[in-house]
């Protein structure tokens, strides 16, 4: 079977079988950490700017898609302008079933819901840009993610003066 078709079939099976996902999570070599980093949140943190970060493979239609041919995945990231309309976004990611997210991007990246919270005054300011990765990154690509691209995004967020970030998986 061709790799994309096989990946999509597996993604559909995993999406519809939480038990299988649990079994997978217990067996595979997920990075196991014994401690966690910590930045204390200020009481007025909701004033923002607040950024979203996703690993659901979201990108602007005009941006290069994530590389689905490399079995180790793609550790690069895309900047998503926070003002981007949902219709300008698409998903390249064969390792989960994103048919529902294709219908409504807010299922994986709540970009419009965050705009709603700003409009109603629940939060202050939204970041000028959000960031997107694809999940399912392995081996040397994982090393690049941890050593290079994830810290690069963190540095960009510092430049933007981001005070809080919410992350969503695919």
């Amino acid at each position, binding site marked *: 079977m061709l790799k994309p078709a096989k990946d999509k079939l597996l*993604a559909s099976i*995993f*999406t*519809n079988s939480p038990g299988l*996902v*649990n079994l997978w*999570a217990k067996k595979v070599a*997920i*990075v196991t*950490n*014994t401690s*966690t*980093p*910590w*930045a*204390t*949140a200020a009481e007025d*943190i*909701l004033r923002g700017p607040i950024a979203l*970060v996703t*690993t*659901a493979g979201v990108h602007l239609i005009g941006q290069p898609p994530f590389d689905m041919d490399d079995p180790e995945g793609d550790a690069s990231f895309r900047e998503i302008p926070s003002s981007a309309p949902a219709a300008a976004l698409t998903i390249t990611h064969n390792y*989960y*079933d*994103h048919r*529902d*997210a294709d*219908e*409504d991007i*807010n*299922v*994986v990246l*709540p970009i419009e*819901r*965050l705009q*709603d*919270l700003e409009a109603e005054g*629940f*939060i202050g300011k939204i970041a000028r840009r959000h960031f997107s*990765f694809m*999940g399912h990154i392995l081996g040397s690509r*994982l090393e690049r*993610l*941890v050593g290079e691209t*994830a*810290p690069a*995004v*963190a*540095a960009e*967020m*510092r430049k933007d003066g*981001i*005070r*809080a*970030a*919410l*992350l*969503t*998986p*695919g």
Partner: protein
Amino acid sequence: MGLIQRAIEEAEIPTISISLNRTVTEKVKPPRAVLVGYPLGHPMGRPFDKKTQTSLLKEGLTLLRDIRVPGTLVDASDRYHF
């Protein structure tokens, strides 16, 4: 996702993630996470369910502000599931 979250937190930006799997999250140990009961590909629930998406986003951001214990995983899967 948790590894990216940790990198952002290390840059002194407070973070929270939506988790779809307790086992993965407990291994990666992000600083703050809220566990939902949705299947893969649906961290914010059903398409066009604005009410639930908004509620979960508000809850996540409020927890981000209020959690004071590093590594806290809040289980909201009884309220956020299909």
